[in-house]
């Protein structure tokens, strides 16, 4: 095991040597579009031996969760070191060794609200890619009004009895465990009767059903709980819920704010896709001659480019503000603006690719599916309308009545 804090070499050299030595060359030589993402989990099938060995090497050095403490499976890097790590990863074209909802969502929730024993128990399983988590928030009757979740967990002494259903659970059909918002007090005001519960998907009574989307993809599922017995505890001081019973809303809210800032960066479907790392301008410049001579398309492209550049500067400014003390509810603006901009971007990409763009698998690859996917950007993680509500009520302090 590498201990970056103890090694006398300058950090950039160490980390760069580590990546060069441990990330197989075949992974680094592969174009980003052809690499498959490693999600981990009990049932994960590695796309190559190289993907497996990179995950093992990176996780044993704590680099799948570089900023988490070493005791929880992280590398304990400082913010500055993490930045260098990312820069070196990019420079050496090394793919991320592991992506997961455990790293993005549950981990931060446990770090902020979990007991010491919960952290020691669950976090290393996440960083090693052993357990794949999914998020059980929305329900058929609780979308934007998330706090009205009806899936209930009844107190049965040594266990909770869970009944209900969740919707839009990303990759639930591949997940090992789920962190879910469940109602543990039906009498309390709706925000005060919710718990943030950790449930094994192999428990009897849990079932999933993929939802096919307009894009043809099925990244989401419906997840059903029928008389599922969830033990109250997974070991000493390892309760099934994160935070206190009935105070799960605090945990959920914390995570949602976190998620918004992430989505503001572009929205799912914007990162890779048709642009393949190129700027919009570079992509437009590469198109069939004459497409941009059409004045309406040209003017839409110019407006989009102006707004895209200004949004990039805004993300940069907000990142600095976040480091300097936080942006709070203003993060709703990033989510609102970033996702609406991404939808506009894909409308334009469909316009400029014309009749080729509407093919499922034409000369522009999956642009049609990506375009359809962006329509969810302004729904998932809090709709555009909810973001505008947050800005008007919490930032502008407009009255509620």
């Amino acid at each position, binding site marked *: 095991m590498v201990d970056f804090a103890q090694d006398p070499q300058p950090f950039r050299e160490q980390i760069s040597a580590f990546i060069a030595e441990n990330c197989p060359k075949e992974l680094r030589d592969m174009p980003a579009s052809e690499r498959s993402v490693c999600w981990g989990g009990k049932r994960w099938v590695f796309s190559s031996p190289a993907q497996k060995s990179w995950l093992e090497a990176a996780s044993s050095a704590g680099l799948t969760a570089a900023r988490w403490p070493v005791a929880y499976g992280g590398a304990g890097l400082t913010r500055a070191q993490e930045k260098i790590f990312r820069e070196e990863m990019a420079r050496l074209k090394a793919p991320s060794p592991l992506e997961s909802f455990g790293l993005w969502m549950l981990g931060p929730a446990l770090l902020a609200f979990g007991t010491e024993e919960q952290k020691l128990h669950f976090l290393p399983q996440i960083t090693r890619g052993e357990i794949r988590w999914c998020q059980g928030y929305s329900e058929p009757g609780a979308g934007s009004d998330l706090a009205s979740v009806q899936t209930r967990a009844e107190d049965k002494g040594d266990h909770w009895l869970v009944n209900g259903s969740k919707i839009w659970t990303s990759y639930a059909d591949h997940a090992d465990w789920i962190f879910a918002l469940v109602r543990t007090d039906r009498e309390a005001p709706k925000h005060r009767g919710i718990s943030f519960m950790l449930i094994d998907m192999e428990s009897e009574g849990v079932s999933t059903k993929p939802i096919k989307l307009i894009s043809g993809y099925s990244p989401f599922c419906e997840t059903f709980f029928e008389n599922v017995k969830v033990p109250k505890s997974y070991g000493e001081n390892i309760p099934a819920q994160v935070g206190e019973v009935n105070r799960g809303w605090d945990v959920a809210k914390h995570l949602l704010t976190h998620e918004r800032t992430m989505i503001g960066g572009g929205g799912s479907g914007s990162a890779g896709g048709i642009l393949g790392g190129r700027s919009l301008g570079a992509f437009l*410049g590469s198109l069939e001659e004459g497409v*941009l001579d059409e004045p309406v398309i040209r003017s839409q492209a110019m407006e989009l480019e102006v*707004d895209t550049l200004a949004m990039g500067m805004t993300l940069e400014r907000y990142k600095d503000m976040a480091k300097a003390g936080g942006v709070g509810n203003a993060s709703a603006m990033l989510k609102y603006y970033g996702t609406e901009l991404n939808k506009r971007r894909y409308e334009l990409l469909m316009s400029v690719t014309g009749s080729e763009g509407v093919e499922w698998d034409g000369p522009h690859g999956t642009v049609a599916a990506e375009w359809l996917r962006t329509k969810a950007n302004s729904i998932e993680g809090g709709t555009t309308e909810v973001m*505008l509500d947050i800005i008007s009520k919490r930032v502008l302090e407009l009255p509620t009545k």
Partner: protein
Amino acid sequence: MTSLMLNEDETMLRDSARGFLDDAAPVKMLRTNRDSGRAYDPGFWKEMAQMGWTGVLVPEEAGGSDMGHRAAGILAEEMGVTLAASPFISSAVMAATALRGAASDRLSGIADGSAIYAIAVDEGTKHGPEKTALQAERSGNAFRLSGRKTFVADGGSAGRVLVLARTAGAPGEAAGLTLFDLDADRAGLSRSARKTVDSRDHAQLDFDGVEATGDDIVGELDNGMAVLGLALRAGQAALSAELTGLSAGAFAMTAGYLKERKQFDRIIGSFQALQHRAAHMWSEIEVTASAIANAGRVLDESPDESQLAVSVAKARATQTAKLVVSEGVQMHGGIGMTDEFDMGFFMKRARVGAEWLGDYGYHAAKVAAARGF
């Protein structure tokens, strides 16, 4: 690059500017200016000079405070909030930048506020320095300038004029242009004030064989854009900042009104139809503010590569101001349409600011060109 967030010094500059302008140049001063037929208050200009604002882009050895373009933007932004009128952008930003590039000894006059400059570039209804047709004909060692300049901001009151004239080539070509620094009272130069909606000084300048010498040339003969180009970008960035301050000022008035006006027994700000529009406006202002900060930074750090940053800022600022003043009038209802109420002043200045130094289309096209399409 330096962060786009305000640093400690910049925050102090902004706060002190805000305090001063609230006091010395509130929106009602613009009303006083308009009603008394003056473009700005000379006493206010003197106070700005005393605080070092007129010398914000002048080197210290010429008596300036030399705070840079980001600082000039912060000042212009605050001036926009209260619609403070002065020749700041013409003289302290654009002329100072052009003359600095040419190492002119007239900079100290700009710094102490005694010399006020106007920049005479455009000749038609739309911005475009390369379209210049005004001729500077050579006669021996001298030149004779003939032609017309339109929409010259501060052209009626400035003591000196930087005028762009054609010494070679044909209209449409960026080469062959020469920048002259002339006394506004020079024989053959007549100025006529145009009454513009923003109640500020905009003039038409007619040149009828105005004599100039080689000493009057700023920079090089036939290569005037080398110094004027940067000066225009500096002006565009400062004007964008002013428009963003204007947006923030108009938005604050509107948000305040939404919180107090009652109809149907409810505070109108509780209606979601208005809340979402207000939240959208605020988002646009936030995004534009980032572009303003970026333009100032780039002008300070790599001035020769600043066109993209400046054009993103001017395009954004123009669009945002247009949205905010239109919504400002609409959300105020009937009172927003009255002359007695201030919102109209914001709307009128936003319209003039949208045209001056290049409109949305002009700058969006610059962005597209810089981005390769």
